[in-house]
Each structure stands twice: as C-alpha cells, then as structure tokens.
C-alpha cells in the first residue's frame, strides 16, 4: 500500500518529522517497505532562465547559454545541445555535483569543445519524470516567479512516497484514512474531520435496474450492491494533483471517472467501479458465473468464469468479476456521457478464491479479500459521486440499493486489566479507553467490565486478546518490560530424550571417523524411491515443485549416493558422507523413522582416500561401512557383538557382501554393505561404494542404572596365556559362528578371541574351504595355568568349533 506524505496529511493534522512517522508506522504494524523521497533525488534541480544564447564557436549543434538562477546574481555559463534552447526560456537547471538519474551521471565541470560547461539544462526524461526527450523543459512564462526554487516544489512533486506492507487482517489500512487513524491513535497528530460533500443525491431514480440474483447457498458472495447514475458528464482528464498522486502510488491516470474510483479506493480502502451506462444491455446484476461464460477484462485478457465466481452481468452476459476486475466493453471512455457508479460488498473468501483461480492481483482484490468495510457502501458511493460531479459535472440520480448492508456489529466484554496480564505493560484504564476510542471503538460500562463496540472497518477484532493487541501496539511494544522467565532449577537439568542424545552422539562419532555430514532433500525422484522399495501412492506429493523432488524418501541412501555422484562430478572421487534424518514408510506419524546413514566412495577409508607415501589407496568395502556402523552403535550404547548379523540386507546392497544387524528376528537395527552394482550404476557412481543405515528408533532403550558408580575392576595379577588355532572350514561358514563356538569352550577362562588371519586361496579355494586363524586369550583367575589345563581348553575349543562348523584344525 503506497501513499504520499501530502495525501496522508489530507487526513492527519501533524507536524512530526517524516522519520518519526516511518518509525511509528513500522512499530504499530504497518511495516515500511520503502520510502522514495523526490527531495533526495531531485531536490537539486531548480527553475532557471536562459538570459542569453549564442552559437558555440566550434560546434554547429551546440549553443553557449547563460543561465540565471538567482535574479541579479552572476549567471552560469552552460554548453547546451537542445534545439529548443533560446534566450528567455524558463527551464530546469542542474548545477555541478548533481546526480542526473535519467542519464546516470553526476555532473562535473568539464570543457565541451573548448568551452567549460558549469551545469546542465535538463529534459523531463533526464529527471525521469516522463519518457519525453524533445529538448529541454520549456515552462510557461508565469513560472518566472519561481526562478531559483526547486523544480519539484513548483510542480507539487516534493512529496515522499511511502510504501507499507499491510498484514491480511487490516483492510482498513488499505486506505490512507485508515493509516491516518492508526497514526493519530499513536499520538502523531489528529484525524481530520470527514470531507464535507456537496449534494450528491439526485431526484430521479436511475434508469438502470440493479439486482442481486443468488440462491441461498451463494448469497454471501455479494450481499449489497448500490449504484447511482450521473448523466451529462464530460469525461476528460482528471486534475494534475489527482494524477500526480495516482502516479506517485504507481497507478496510471486514465480519465476522470476511472481516476475517481482509483482515488477513492486508495483514499478509503473502498473499491468502486464505473460503467458507461449507454453500453449496458438491460439491468445490471450480481450473480454466480456459469461454466462456459467468459468476458474481456480491463487488462485486455479474456477470462473464463465458473460457478464459484461472483460476476457482475447485464443481459449480454458477465461484465466483470465482482471484487476483482471490471470489463473492457462496459468501461468508460472520453465519450462517456452517462455513468453508473457501483459500490458493492463482495465476500472476502470468495474474492480470494476467484483471485487465486484467475491469478489476478488487483487493487480491488487486495481490499475485498481482506474485508472491505461493509458500512462504506453508501458513503463510498456518495464520495465517488461528489468527486465525479466536481471533476466531470453532470446530474446525479437517486441511489439504488439491492440487498442490505451485512450487520457486522460486535461488542466485546473487556476487562482493561487484561492488557497488563497479557502484555506485561501497565496501561491505565483511562489510556486503554482513549486508545480504543481513537481507533474507532465505542465504549460503555466501567471499571473491569467494559463493553467495547468494534467499528465496522475492523473485521479482525474478535475478542479481548485482539483488544490487548490494539492497545499494546499503539502504546508501543518498546514499552513491554523484558521480564526474566522464572528459573525452574538452580542448575539447569538435562532435557534431551534418549533418542535425541543418541542422535547427537551418532553425529559426532561419525564425523570423528572422517565422514562429512550433509542434509539432503526429504523428497526424491519417484524412480529412485521405487528402487529403494518406496514410492507408494500415499507418499507422492500431489503438487511437487519438480519431478526430482516428488516422493518422500524411503531411505537416506539415495540422497547420499546422489550427493556422492555430484561430488564425483566435481572431481572428488573419494568421499565419505553421512546424514541423520528421517525416512517415510507411510503418511502417518508412525511411518516416519529416524535414521543415521553413511556412505563411502572410492578409497575414502578411515585413514583417508587417495594416494599417500605411507599407505596405498585401498578401495572401500563392506567392512569400512561395518566399522562405521559399529562405532555409531557403540556410541549409542549398543555392542554390535551382542547383535546378530544376518545375510538379508535389502536389494540395493551387494547380495554377497552385505549384512543386516538385528536383535532377534523382528528388531532390525541396521543394514550395511557394498552398494549393489545396479544401484551404483543408477547413480553413475565411479568406483566402489559402501553404505550403512541405522534405525535409531529400533535401538533398545538403555538400561536404567541405580547410580553412576562403575563396577569394581576384576583385574588379575596372573599372566594371561595366548594360544593360536587355525581352522579349515567350509567357505560359507560365518566367522561369527566359529567365534561363538570357541567362546563356549570355557566362558570363564577365555577372555578374548581375535581373528588374526583369513585365507581363502590356494588349494582351499578349490575345495570351497577357507582357513580362519584365531588367537585365544586365557585369563587365569585363581592360580597360574598349568599345561594340562591349557590343553584341556584347547581340546574343548577344537571340539566346539568342529561341532558347530565341521571345521578341523589346519595341519
């Protein structure tokens, strides 16, 4: 919403500086988006007279002119190229140092073909006042009395333009008078009385019928439609002052009739429409549109209407969309002699819906969708009639009204103490009342029991909290005293839930292993979602922003692989990324899962990727992913050795080189492995990729401990004994099976088993066998181990392994 300072002062008696106005506007909820002050940009251009003009000695097209800016004082010698420059011309002069916006130049003293020019005589286009560049500005002779004055003062342009953002709840501030009322309430001046209108009501009834044609379901679309005709108008241009204001707020002056409607809309937030009555076929009525109808709108486009849109129509069909835009064919022109003025009230929600459906953003929609003051139907009609009679002459008819103005009167029971309770600012009951009255409320009752009647232009005020807001924004939010929130505990207590703590730990441990955290989109392409066993109908967006962001992700792996691909394209073949985020298996809250997932590509192992003089680059494999996974699980309180590893990772992993970590048959904690070659191909990945994904929600809760004390350390003074065993087993036997079997041999004595060699080559490969070598640590507790005891354990180990795996000691 744009307005100029002088326009504001039509409604507000004030002497406060512009700066104060701007600060207050923003503070009370009318956020100043921009201010254009012509005094800043054009203040240096002054009215001046050319006292003498003679040809330039060295240039045919140039003249040397003497410019007078202060009568009686020496003139400025200027080199001028304009064909209309002549002695006696009164024009506009820019001295040295002036920035000329139309040519984007700051004037400096310089010689033009040997003659120094001390400024510039300007054209309208150089001042960006119009597009005309037919020589320099040539003012009428009577302007001589203004020589030396700033040009913008003389033509009434010295008027700052203020643009404020109006929140959707404030229809009243879509008119200058509403803004003035707010500022007056905030103590920046007084609201001037309403304009005294001349006689606007004629004697004859209008010759055109006005009607509302709705059924009970749609009658809310337009509850009142008032009109008045004015005959014998001369629709010339509107006066300069009106044109200047309309231009300043960004509107193009059209003709007196149209300009009046635009002026009243901006002045009062009251949109109107004018029809050339001679172009109307039969009566005018408001009704719902019908499918198949269309009309040519004022913007030159043809719009189809439908049954959800309110139209204004005559016997020929729709003329315009009620509350949104008028029609071209029934519009006024310079030839219009009889005008029908429309002042109606259209439903905010229907206007908004029509606006969205057509994509039209108009001044009328801006106001009607916020809720134009229904009580302004008749005063608005009268004001428009007043201006039309003033600017275009003619004879008014009686007003005719179809329907009735909706009753929006509201009275709120209000305890003024509520202001302090809710805002913390102590405002006396007297001040509360003064502010509410200044905003247009009427108040009766007393003490804690006030009855506040809300003005018809404030549809946004519903209850006591709204009244508190009104009082506090006017008193000033800076008056709200910062008040410490009561502290609950002397020393703050921990607040995070177990999953929140686990997420934090997983993040830090993964980063400590060289993985880089990223955040990727929650939605991915449909084909990728399907590849990762997702993409169900209920997880596809109905209105995605692009096909690449269309479906809620079933896994974090696609986002990571896609990110690895982009990084590889930038030259980073070796990369390790992780993400902590959510995946979706259904559209319900329970279908959202918290996941920690990571992926390593190329040779980005724990020691780092690429070549190094100390270590050769090794391609990443499933054990890199498994080690990351184990570290993250451990940080989250779970020992991977206590879980089972099964060979049923999902399809995007290499079937032979991947695993699933689970606790029992139902509880899946994680997947890990090398990415399936087909999946890697889908993402055009270069080199091997290993990934893991941990289902944080599935981790068992940590056991609650009674205290923080750790158990005693059972360290023995007796030396541990180590023995090595190499077993030959079938190639398909899992090392974990062998280890668990060996452990069983003597749970008390065996303190650790370590796999120190796995060999699958040579003769063994031919037999489909492998050798697994383990080092067993025996920790005696009571006495030093005797050979016999060691031998007994060794035999037990061999027996257990044989029993569990069929493996034999390697010969």
């Amino acid at each position: 919403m744009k307005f100029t300072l002088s326009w504001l002062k039509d409604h507000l008696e004030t002497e406060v500086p512009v700066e104060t106005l701007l600060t207050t506007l923003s503070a009370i909820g009318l956020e100043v988006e921009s201010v254009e002050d012509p005094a800043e940009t054009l203040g240096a251009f002054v009215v001046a007279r050319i006292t003498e003009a003679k040809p330039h000695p060295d240039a045919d097209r140039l003249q040397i002119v003497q410019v007078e800016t202060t009568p009686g004082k020496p003139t400025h010698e200027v080199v001028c190229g304009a064909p209309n420059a002549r002695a006696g011309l009164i024009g506009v002069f820019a001295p040295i140092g002036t920035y000329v916006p139309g040519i984007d130049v700051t004037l400096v003293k310089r010689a033009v073909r040997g003659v120094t020019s001390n400024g510039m005589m300007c054209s309208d286009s150089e001042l960006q006042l119009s597009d005309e560049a037919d020589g320099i500005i040539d003012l009428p002779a009577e302007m001589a009395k203004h020589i030396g004055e700033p040009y913008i003062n003389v033509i009434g342009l010295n008027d700052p333009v203020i643009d404020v953002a109006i929140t959707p709840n404030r229809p009243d501030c879509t008119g200058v008078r509403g803004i003035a009322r707010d500022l007056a309430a905030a103590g920046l001046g007084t609201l001037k009385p309403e304009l005294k209108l001349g006689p606007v009501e004629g004697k004859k009834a209008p010759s055109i019928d006005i009607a509302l044609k709705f059924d009970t379901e749609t009658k809310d679309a337009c509850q009142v439609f008032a009109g008045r005709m004015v005959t014998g108008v001369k629709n010339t241009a509107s006066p300069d002052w009106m044109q200047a204001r309309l231009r300043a707020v960004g509107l193009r002056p059209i003709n007196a009739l149209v300009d009046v409607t635009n002026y009243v809309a901006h002045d009062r937030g009251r949109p109107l429409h004018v029809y050339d009555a001679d172009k109307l076929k039969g009566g005018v009525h408001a009704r719902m549109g019908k499918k198949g109808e269309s009309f040519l709108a004022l913007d030159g486009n043809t719009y189809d209407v439908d049954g959800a849109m309110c139209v204004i129509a005559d016997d020929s069909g729709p003329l315009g969309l009620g509350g949104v835009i008028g029609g071209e064919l029934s519009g006024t022109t310079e030839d219009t002699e009889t005008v029908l003025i429309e002042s109606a009230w259209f439903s905010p929600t229907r206007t908004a819906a029509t606006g969205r459906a057509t994509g039209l953003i108009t001044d009328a929609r801006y106001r009607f969708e916020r809720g134009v003051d229904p009580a302004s139907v008749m005063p608005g009609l009268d004001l428009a009639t007043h201006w039309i009679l003033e600017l275009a002459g003619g004879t008014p008819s009686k007003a005719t009204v179809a329907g009735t103005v909706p009753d929006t009167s509201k009275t709120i029971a209000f305890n003024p103490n509520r202001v302090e309770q809710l805002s913390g600012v102590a405002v006396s009951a007297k001040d509360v009342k003064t502010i509410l009255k200044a905003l247009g409320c009427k108040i009766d009752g007393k003490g804690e029991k006030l009855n506040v009647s809300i003005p018809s232009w404030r549809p946004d005020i519903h209850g006591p909290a709204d009244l508190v807001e009104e009082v506090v924004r006017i008193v000033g939010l800076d008056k709200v005293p910062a008040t410490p929130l009561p502290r609950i505990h002397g020393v703050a207590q921990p607040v995070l839930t177990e999953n929140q703590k686990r997420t934090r730990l997983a993040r830090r441990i993964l980063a400590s292993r060289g993985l880089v955290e990223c955040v990727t989109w929650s939605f991915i392409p449909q084909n990728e979602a399907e590849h990762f066993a997702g993409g169900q109908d209920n997880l596809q967006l109905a209105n995605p922003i692009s096909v690449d962001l269309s479906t809620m992700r079933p896994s974090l792996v696609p986002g990571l692989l896609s990110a690895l691909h982009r990084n590889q394209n930038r030259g980073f073949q070796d990369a390790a990324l992780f993400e902590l985020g959510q995946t979706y298996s259904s559209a319900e809250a329970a279908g959202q899962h918290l996941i920690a997932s990571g992926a390593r590509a190329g040779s980005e192992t724990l020691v780092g990727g690429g070549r190094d003089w100390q270590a050769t680059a090794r391609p990443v494999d499933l054990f890199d992913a498994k080690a990351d996974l184990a570290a993250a699980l451990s940080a989250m309180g779970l020992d991977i050795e206590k879980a089972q590893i099964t060979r049923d990772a999902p399809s995007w992993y290499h079937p032979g080189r991947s695993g699933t970590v689970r606790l029992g048959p139902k509880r899946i904690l994680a997947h890990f492995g090398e990415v399936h070659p087909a999946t890697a191909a889908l993402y055009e990945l270069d080199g091997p990729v290993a990934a893991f994904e941990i289902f944080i929600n599935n981790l068992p809760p940590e056991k609650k401990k009674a205290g923080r004390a750790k158990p005693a350390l059972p360290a023995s003074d007796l030396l541990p004994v180590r023995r090595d065993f190499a077993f030959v087993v079938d190639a398909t036997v899992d090392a974990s099976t062998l280890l668990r079997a060996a452990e069983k041999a003597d749970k008390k004595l065996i303190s650790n088993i370590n796999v120190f060699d796995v060999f699958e080559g040579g003769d063994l490969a031919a037999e489909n066998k492998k050798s697994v070598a383990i080092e067993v640590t025996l920790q005696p507790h009571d006495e030093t181990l005797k050979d016999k005891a060691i031998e007994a354990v060794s035999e037990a180990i061999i027996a257990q392994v044989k029993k569990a795996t069929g493996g034999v000691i390697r010969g």
Partner: protein
Amino acid sequence: MTASGPTADLNALEQDVLASITEAGDLTALENARVAAIGKKGRISAEMQKLGAMKPEERKAFGKAVNAVKARVTKALDTRKGALEAAALAEKLATERADVSLPVRDGPETRGRIHPVSQVLDECIEIFADMGFSVAEGPDIESQDTNFTKLNMPEDHPARQDHDTFYFAPGLDGSRQLLRTHTSTVQIRTMLNNEPPLRIIAPGRVYRGDSDQTHTPMFHQIEGLVIEEKIHMGHLKWVLEEFSKAFFEVDDVEMRFRASHFPFTEPSMEVDIGAGTIGKPGDWLEVLGCGMVHPNVLKNCGLDPERYQGFAFGMGLDRITMLKYGIPDLRAFFSADLRWLRHYGFSMLNTPTLGGGLSR
C-alpha cells in the same frame, strides 16, 4: 720404596692388562683381551692358580692383592665394553636418518564435519535448555487439522493459500495429508498431549513450494512455546533478548519489536536485530515472528484460555545460521557439496557448551 717379589710382578701384570683393554678398538678385541686376562688360561687366572702352592701367610697377602687386580680389571672391561657398545650404536644410528620433513596424513577426526545447521541446533538447545526448555518433535507429514485448523486457520482462511503447501493425494476418507509448512504443528501436539506448565523448543524440517536464492522447498525452523498461568509478552521479550545475546555471543544486542499479524498469536510481533550489533551490514535484520498464543489455539488444544496463557515464537534455523556464520546462499545448505561442507562445517570436537562457549 720399590715393590719387589710377586706383588711387584702383579703390578706390572695389571698395568699390562689394563693397557690391552684400553687398546681394544672393538668388541672382538676387547673379548680377546678379557680372555687373555681373566679367561681360564688368562694371565691373571694363572696368577691365582699360584695360590695353592703358597704358604698360608704368603697366600693371604698375595690372594688379597690378586683378587683386587682381578676386580679392577673386570671393572675396566665393563667400562670399556659400555663405551664400545655406545660407539657402535651411535655409528649404526647415524646410518638410520629419516626425512623428517615428510608430511603426515590428517586423521579422520580432522576430515569429518558437522553440518552448520546441526551445529547451530546444538547451540540453540544448549541455550534454551539452560532456560528450562526441553526439545519436542513432530512428524513432517501432517494433517490439515494440525497444520492449519487448530492453529486458528479454518478451511477458508487465506493464510492457508499463502503457505504454498505441498499436499499428498486425498486418502480414502477424502482428507489430504500435507508436509508441514511450519514447526508450529509441534505446539499443537505438545499442548494436546501435555498439561502446562510447558516450555519447549521444536526444531525441524518444514516445507513450502518456493525456490530461489533465499527460499528452498525444504528448510529448518525452530519453534518455541511457553504455557503457564502468568506468562506475558515481557517474558517473551526477555527470552528472545537473552537468546540473541547468547546465540550471537555478544554482550548486548539491539532488538526491535514490531506489531504484526499471525493467525495463531494475538498480539503478534515481528522481531528485528540491529545489524551492527552482530557485525552485519544494513540496519535491521528480520529474525523471527512471535506472539501470545491465540486463545482459539489454546481452546483447540483443550486448554482454558481464562487460566492458561503463554507465548510462541518461530525462527528460521538456516537463517540464523547464515547470519551468525556469514553463509551467503541458502540453497547450498542442501547441495551436499564437499567443498562447502568442509568450509562451513564444524569439527566434531567443537561441541557447543555454555561453559566453554558456543563456538570457538
């Protein structure tokens, strides 16, 4: 007086042997000298063998003398051996020179990074936890009821359109789920499931169909909610001022509160921060919207607005991250560009704490 007899011979022998030890240039020569002196057939051993043939009083004196010689020789052998060994080791080590200028690799702890949004979230949690806020969470896929209706935006409310909401296809009952457009949904879930007093923050991903340099279809918000019996706008102001000082790590921060409008708060405010106070160019930077929870919202969540009141605020987590750490482009947050992540990301050691400072 000159020594004579067997003792005098012994003296000469000792001098001779000690000289041979000193002269030994390496461990082999030294071993030869040792064998020649105190080996089985050594010269000193031979002297000792003479003891058996001596008379007792003679034996006593000579025995003492020869043992003393042997002790001194043995000591000299040990000393010489130590010196030769040290020299040999020094000579060996001199050949074991490494190029100490060769570079060592960065460890994984140096290469890994924490995403700036995660880091800033940890910072926020640290600050709000100190003020007694816990961290609440809610799903990204929500109902229209939670995202709009319960937040005082009934079906025909224009704000529903302004949010550029992502919808899913209608379900069997005709209702359409959506991607939450703000974390205010967690306010609703918190109030529906808990009794006041309530103090929560709710960080998370939110979604709007918008994309340019400052808008991405997915971004992060952090919501705050306090509901008690006597909480007013002054508390809200204090919390935001304290948060801003702590978060931007400055002693004082200039703040401006402007009246505004949101359907779910009344009164509503927008909050700007003085750009200069946090070392940014410009006058004011808009950082968040807030207000007193609208009585209709309290009612919609089963709380009595006559008894309970409180405030809510919501700010862009990415936005405050950009402001604090000077990150220019929002879109880069979600592009997973390693160069960007390494540059703007944080070391895993940089865990924000109030005691140690939020950042280093």
